[in-house]
């Protein structure tokens, strides 16, 4: 096991700096946040002077709050369609289709896809306003219906398409390298027996990259579930129709000053993340 001859002691020394930093700047504030979640703490007003521990009241209120349930539903849709299906499929599709393509084409597409991933969120928001806004928006002009305000009339669809655009790069990178690990001889055999593209993917490629699919799906699901960029595009509107959880939490914490309540919702988001991770671990274990 210990091929590097590190030894447990030296191994710990390698891990320690990262753990210290994580301990101070991540674990400690995170636990504190979870504690705030059981108080009625507010940023200003009387409850700021004397916060009281209210136990699970915040959590119960959240579960009963139609805004919260609406938000959970939207987040689930957002993760399912933009990450689990959209980014996964497009990322894999690009990786698969571009294998035989020439170098120049491949580089151009990879470069563009990566650019959409690395541009700062605020800038990306402006780019998409220019696509989706009314009257002058590119999409409206292209489709010949400039009077459509896409972000108002189809808020979730817009966000999902946006997030596919924004996040596909990671899946594409990961699948490109995963496909490189599939033995070429097996692909060749599949071709010789006349298997179709889809059959090849299902019977030859997928068993090899199953682990990658799961890792990829976990990471992009978590990132999407916690993504705050939708706020920059729609602020959760119109009328809460695109208010995914991070946006709801932000609005409760900053616009409402309800830090206790917002923290309790963060806790629930964490539980949601935990469920995603557990499902993933189970699938992974079943494979092994």
């Amino acid at each position, binding site marked *: 096991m210990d091929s*590097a001859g590190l030894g447990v002691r030296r191994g710990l020394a390698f891990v320690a700096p990262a753990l210290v930093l994580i301990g101070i700047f991540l674990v400690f504030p995170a636990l504190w946040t979870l504690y705030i979640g059981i108080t009625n703490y507010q940023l200003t007003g009387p409850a700021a002077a004397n916060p009281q521990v209210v136990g699970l009241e915040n959590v119960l209120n959240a579960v009963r709050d139609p805004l919260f349930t609406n938000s959970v539903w939207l987040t689930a849709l957002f993760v399912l369609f933009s990450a689990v299906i959209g980014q996964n499929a497009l990322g894999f599709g690009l990786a698969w289709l571009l294998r035989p393509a020439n170098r120049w084409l491949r580089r151009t597409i990879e470069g563009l896809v990566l650019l959409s991933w690395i541009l700062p969120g605020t800038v990306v928001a402006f780019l998409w306003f220019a696509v989706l806004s009314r009257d002058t928006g590119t999409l409206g002009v292209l489709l010949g219906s400039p009077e459509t305000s896409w972000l108002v009339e189809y808020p979730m669809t817009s966000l999902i398409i946006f997030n596919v655009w924004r996040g596909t790069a990671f899946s594409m990178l990961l699948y490109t390298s995963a496909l490189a690990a599939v033995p070429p001889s097996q692909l060749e055999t599949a071709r010789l027996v006349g298997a179709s593209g889809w059959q090849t993917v299902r019977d030859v490629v997928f068993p090899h990259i199953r682990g990658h699919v799961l890792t990829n799906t976990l990471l992009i699901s978590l990132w999407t579930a916690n993504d705050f960029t939708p706020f920059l595009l729609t602020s959760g509107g119109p009328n809460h129709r695109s208010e995914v959880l991070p946006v709801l939490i932000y609005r409760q914490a900053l616009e409402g000053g309800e830090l206790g309540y917002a923290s309790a919702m963060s806790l629930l988001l964490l539980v949601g993340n935990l469920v995603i991770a557990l499902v993933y671990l189970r699938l992974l274990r079943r494979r092994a």
Partner: protein
Amino acid sequence: MSPLWMVRRIGFYVLITMVLAFFAVPMLWLASAPFDSKPGLGLRWPDWTLRNVTATFDHPFTLSSLVNSLILCSVATVVTTVLAALAAYALSRVRMPGRDLLLYLLLLLSSVVTGTAAMVPIFVMMLQLGLINSQFGTALVIAGGMLPAAIFILKDFMDAVPRSYEESARVFGASPRQVLSHVVLPVARPGVATIFVWAFVNAWGNFLLPFLLLRDVGQQPAAVLLRTLYDEGGSANLRVIPVFSLLYSIPVVVLYLFVSKRYGFRFHGGIKS
């Protein structure tokens, strides 16, 4: 040249063109609006001018905010990459009890802390540590939030480095440190480079933490400045925003191009779970 083959070929190119358009069209704004005499939220052939550029450079904080961003993100990125690489290597090679569980827990906690709900704890803690108004302190907080995911991804890279390399190196009497720097790192370099860019991009876009932890506009990074380009009624200053968006995007693109040319930008060998 069977007809079927032709159809497939055409289908392939139509598909590729659509994908290209999907990814390219939104970016055109960044090429047109900065140089348009009447920039708006929409795409049009610009009425060319450089007045927006002059206006942007006349803004007192444009350049300083970019410099601040560079300092802040360099520190955060270097700290993240180095510590994550060390930790990922050790976690990949040494069997430690509860290793996977620990990694997952940290990954999950990182989503709580990057959210807004954690701002009071972070603020109060930084105040007590005397790190308010410190670029370095702010960079550490950002790094702390990124470390779990970085370790998580890098560990898979490290797992993919064949152990036989290290074993042979040890046979020739190399110390663990030498093994790491001369054998493992060169092989894992594309992965480290990828994490480096990933961390930089994440830190580069962070708004809330620098805004709360650094006191004055003069010390704040570009991500904060971009959000201040509004007038008293909250209307966006569209003369400055497009040019500044462009300036603000250049460093990440340059970094990506540099890294991808020099080290290759891909998950070579892959995340192997």
